[in-house]
């Protein structure tokens, strides 16, 4: 099968930052926690590829370590969304029209009323700022997103005859949800997963920017931008490189999502497959 260009390009972009994050565990050009005031605010050059910040830290190294924070926060937040949202959505669909469905969907509506920033504000007000809080805030916001996708995907499958056939074969709703429903909505979930992943990276950056995310000395792209703000007129490289890092990572993920949708979306595939022999009843 020929892969869509968007998927290839997206995977390369995202892969680059994923690799940077992984490599940063073993090696970075400079240590990001060592301050070197003498070398502060160097413009990009041969020694410091992306320049240095006001403490003389190497921007390139900080971006590598920042990728780690961004990706880790987004991965865990998507994980929380999937782990809680998908079972809830499956359960709501299996008991469609019942009390459980109503409760889950109203609960979802309620969580939707709290944008992840608001959740982060609440958590921070109580527990103080940290990367963990950012993860929880973004993760909680992801739960209803995945619950909705899972529920609507599952609902359309519950009307299909193969689900009925499984019931005739004596299988219970939970078993059917995992054997028949989940594998067939996996496509939807994967595509949504990449979207939420990219939104997670943007949200983490925003939370760190306002000081509700990762705390010093952990480097994070959002806080690098916050720190750069006062120096932007004389040291624009402080703002440009972390910004590009965010844009390219998110762009890569979104392109991957588009590409995955092209090859995975059952709607597109089914249309091609079922054209013959359909009309008479």
């Amino acid at each position, binding site marked *: 099968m020929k892969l869509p260009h968007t998927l290839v390009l997206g995977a390369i972009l995202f892969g680059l930052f994923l690799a940077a994050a992984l490599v940063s565990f073993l090696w970075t050009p400079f240590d990001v926690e060592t301050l070197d005031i003498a070398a502060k605010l160097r413009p990009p050059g041969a020694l410091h590829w992306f320049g240095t910040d006001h403490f003389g830290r190497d921007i390139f190294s900080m971006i590598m370590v920042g990728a780690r924070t961004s990706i880790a926060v987004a991965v865990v937040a998507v994980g929380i969304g999937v782990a809680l949202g998908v079972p809830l959505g499956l359960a709501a669909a299996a008991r469609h029209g019942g009390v459980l469905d109503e409760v889950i969907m*109203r609960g979802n*509506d*309620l969580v*939707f*009323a*709290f*944008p*992840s*920033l*608001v959740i982060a*504000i*609440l*958590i*921070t*007000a*109580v*527990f103080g*700022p940290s990367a963990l809080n950012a993860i929880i805030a973004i993760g909680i916001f992801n739960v209803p997103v995945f619950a909705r996708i899972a529920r609507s995907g599952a609902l359309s499958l519950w009307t299909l005859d193969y689900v009925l056939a499984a019931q005739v074969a004596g299988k219970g709703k939970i078993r059917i949800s995992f054997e028949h429903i989940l594998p067939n909505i996996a496509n939807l979930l994967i595509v949504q997963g990449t979207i939420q992943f*990219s939104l997670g990276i*943007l949200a983490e*950056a*925003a939370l760190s*920017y*306002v*000081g509700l995310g990762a705390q010093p000395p952990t480097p994070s792209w*959002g806080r690098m*931008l*916050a720190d*750069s*703000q006062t120096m*932007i*007129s004389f040291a*624009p490289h402080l*703002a440009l490189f*972390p*910004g590009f890092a*965010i*844009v*390219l990572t*998110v*762009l890569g993920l*979104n*392109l991957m999502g*588009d590409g995955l949708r092209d090859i995975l979306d059952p709607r597109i595939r089914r249309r091609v497959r079922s054209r013959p022999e359909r009309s008479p009843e």
Partner: protein
Amino acid sequence: MDLRPSIPAMLRFTTLRLLSFALSLVAASIVIFAVIEVIPGDPASYMLGLNASPDTVAALREQMGLNSSLILRYLHWVSGMLHGDFGTSYTYRVPVSELVSARLWISIPLAIYALLLSTLLAFPVGLIAAARRGKPTDIGIMGATQLGIAIPNFWFAMLLVVLFAIRLHWFSAGGFPGWSKNFWLSLKSLTLPAIALALPQASILARIMRSSLLDTLGQDYIRTARAKGLTRGQALRRHALRNAMIPVLTIMGMQFSFLLAGAIIIENVFFLPGLGRLIFQGITQRDLIVVESAVMLLVFAVIAVNFLVDLLYAVVDPRLRGKS
């Protein structure tokens, strides 16, 4: 049997929506109250920090009404809010309602301004992309929006400041004169933040608009319209557009809450004295009453917008009015 949408049916729909709107507000207020007042233990000692003397804590407890039961405190808080009384800020020693309402007049207009810009930009762009599906214009628009979605709005805001304020001096780099002092200057000072907020959201909206239009253009009733003798363009305007609005409305409703949240963040870039500044100061100064009220107002705005979107659905889609 008469299934026609009647005034009672519309009234019934509105009443049901209104009821669910009220229920959402109650539920949200309980959640906020629980998180702020229950989880951290004693709010008074938390607000005063570790070094406070027991007497000060006791005094604050008395002042905050912490000695009465949870339910009473909740009811007191809610009934206060219904009367416009949000309590007294611990740090500023002024009524929270005063603090918040001044700030609200920046954050909410900013979010609405951004929503307008985003809609004005996204609708035509989405329409053009759908009409030129697969052509270079469409591919160009899709690429540009893909990039627009990936740009964090606060970073974009910083770039706008560098370009339009620092280099070109078309706008001031920040600050807010106040609506009553100078309306046009106030609007101007919200323009760069609104553009920064609107562009990423407009990219999303344009893409949704395009895909929703393409979806509707594939429907059977478009074929019917074409068989009647409508051109592609006529079928798009007369039949596809209104049907395509249904998912677009959903996204616009959700975007308002993102824009409001975004407004709070972007205020930091432009030094706007909005709700965001108040909230972040409230957090650092442990002024929980301010945080609680501000968050409640934000959530209220989000729920209210979703309620309006629900009503708009019924205007667009007669199926929602007819049967219940």
